[in-house]
């Protein structure tokens, strides 16, 4: 058996995460982020039904795509131009349960907007998560601009922009990807393709199976990944980040995911999605899938998982209590921050 053959044989027997250079601790942290995000997400729906949160919008089903991508980023160094489903992404980059719940209750110290924006309109300066509007795809040119500045200033920074597949139909998305490709920017666009734009199905949104087909037309790298497989998304994003940092330009990643909930608390997906489809969805839970992987690899025990669930529930409880008790914004502050203060 030659050295080479031996190495290959070892690699073959080695677990996927080891091949990806991920250690147990990191995997457990990733799993925790997914579990916490799911717990927060579930709780916000409860709060909505209880009339304590007037509007909620969800990331359930997208967690693996988001946490897998975040795991390939350097928090505080790399940037995220998020969209409203990126709860798990933001948690993974350092947003706390309390930060999030302050937004759900639109409290004065909500770090995203001081209660000015709808919940899940994420922004967190300390984590380099930029402020975003409701107008889809507008953040993609911003991400390209951040990347241009990073390149111009010779900073070793990678910028990730997230959108849904429907948002790729917008002109801004095209203009941004073209700009990023022309300048070979350290830019990654992750499309979270959940087959629907509210009620509009994929077939009425685009004429291709995967939007990753568009990468070549811009002159950038493209990849389609199973967004339910956290390791696959990590691998694709890590490769994209490596390309970005090596000056080899941007990447377009299409992550196929499932939207478990209705579009938002104002929607009822049973109006436009067949029951069988909805039932099939539940068999695509990315968290369960990761849990099974960790257990198979002996990195998670039933007991440890139960503890984790309880821990996260407690964290959510505490966040809700604190956030709900926090001050509402002061009407007197309505006209603040239109322009720089004292300018």
């Amino acid at each position, binding site marked *: 058996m030659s050295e080479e053959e031996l190495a290959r044989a070892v690699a073959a027997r080695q677990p996927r995460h080891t091949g990806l250079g991920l250690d147990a601790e990191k995997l457990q942290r990733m799993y925790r982020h997914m579990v916490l995000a799911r717990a927060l997400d579930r709780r916000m729906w409860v709060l909505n039904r209880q009339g304590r949160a007037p509007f909620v919008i969800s990331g359930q089903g997208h967690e693996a795509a988001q946490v897998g991508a975040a795991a390939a980023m350097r928090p505080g160094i790399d940037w995220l131009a998020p969209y409203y489903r990126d709860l798990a992404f933001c948690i993974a980059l350092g947003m706390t349960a309390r930060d999030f719940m302050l937004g759900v209750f639109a409290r004065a110290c909500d770090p995203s907007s001081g209660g*000015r924006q709808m919940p899940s309109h994420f922004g967190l300066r300390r984590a380099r998560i930029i402020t975003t509007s409701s107008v889809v795809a507008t953040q993609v040119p911003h991400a390209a601009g951040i990347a241009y500045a990073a390149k111009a200033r010779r900073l070793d920074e990678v910028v990730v922009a997230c959108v849904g597949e429907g948002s790729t139909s917008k002109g801004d998305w095209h203009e941004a990807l073209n700009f990023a490709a022309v300048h070979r920017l350290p830019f990654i666009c992750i499309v979270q393709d959940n087959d629907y734009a509210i009620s*509009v199905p994929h077939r009425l949104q685009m004429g291709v199976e995967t939007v990753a087909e568009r990468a070549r037309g811009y002159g950038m790298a493209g990849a389609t990944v199973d967004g339910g497989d956290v390791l696959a998304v990590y691998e694709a994003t890590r490769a994209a980040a490596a390309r970005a940092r090596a000056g080899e330009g941007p990447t377009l990643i299409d992550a196929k995911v499932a939207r478990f909930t209705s579009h938002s608390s104002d929607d009822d997906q049973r109006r436009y999605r067949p029951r069988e489809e909805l039932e099939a969805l539940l068999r695509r839970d990315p968290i369960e899938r990761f849990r099974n992987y960790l257990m198979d690899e002996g990195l998670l025990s039933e007991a440890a998982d139960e503890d984790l669930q309880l821990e996260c529930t407690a964290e959510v409880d505490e966040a809700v209590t604190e956030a709900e008790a926090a001050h509402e914004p002061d009407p007197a502050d309505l006209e603040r921050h*239109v322009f720089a203060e004292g300018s």
Partner: protein
Amino acid sequence: MAVKTLIEGVREALAEEMERDERVWVLGEDVGRKGGVFLATEGLHGRFGEARVLDTPLAESAIVGVAIGAALNGLIPVAEIQFADFIHPAFDQIVSEAARIRYRSNGDWACPIVIRAPFGGGVHGGLYHSQSVEAFYAHVPGLKVVIPSTPADAKGLLKSAIRDPDPVMFFEHKKAYRLVKGEIPDGELLTPIGPAQVRREGASLTCVAWGLMVHHCLEAAEAVAADGISAEVIDLRTLRPLDTGTILRSVEKTGRALIVHEDNLTGGFGAEIAAVVAQDGFEHLDAPVTRVAAPDVPAMPFNHPQEEAFLPNPEKIAAAMRKLAVY
């Protein structure tokens, strides 16, 4: 004659016009199987099919641009922009294209399209689901801008808009959709685009408003009536072309003008009305033309206290009426 909601008026207009004329084509995001996020197009997809009630890709500029093209080839598109806040990406197609097709072709081509969009706040919509955008379009020659405030007008004006040979911007106040009820006459209802409507006669002052604000003004008028102030309330209904005659006749009678809108004060359409009154009603004015509007901050916050603080309401309007009446 039956009491219905404003959104029912919209829905009836669409259904009747699609029934009447197979060229009428409804397009927009989620207008199909879902029936629109406010259910304005509910039932149309099942009744007229996917080709005539089309769920478009998420691309507002294309929604308007494609509608323009379809109009050039014989269809009568009625495009829905899901929220007025999301009409901005289509600004160029509306202002540079739709509004100018006829003018730039010296009358050879026309653009008979209707663009519907829900606007306005007070529904916890936050910065991007609450905006008033009428001022941008009321400034554009070549466009007509219509804003109904009653179920009957929603129906009658929308039907007229669909039959209009030129592009019409049709803004519907989303809070009024279900809040505002009223009778809709049975049978064909075609309300002309242009004329304003005096909703309440009065002698002390003239109050001009549109959309939900009309109802706030009427409430305020009732409130100040107790103090012997009789406010005339004009529902503009059409912002462009502007019915200056009705406004000026009223000011001639009252000598006082109060303009109310939910949009930000500076550069809002109230400024145009104030300018017209100040120029052509000068001789009759006994007091300064006054505006009640939202403060100059970028749209209304999501949190309740600041949303409340942002919005004009009957109390704020009544206060302005009292101040103006005793000037």
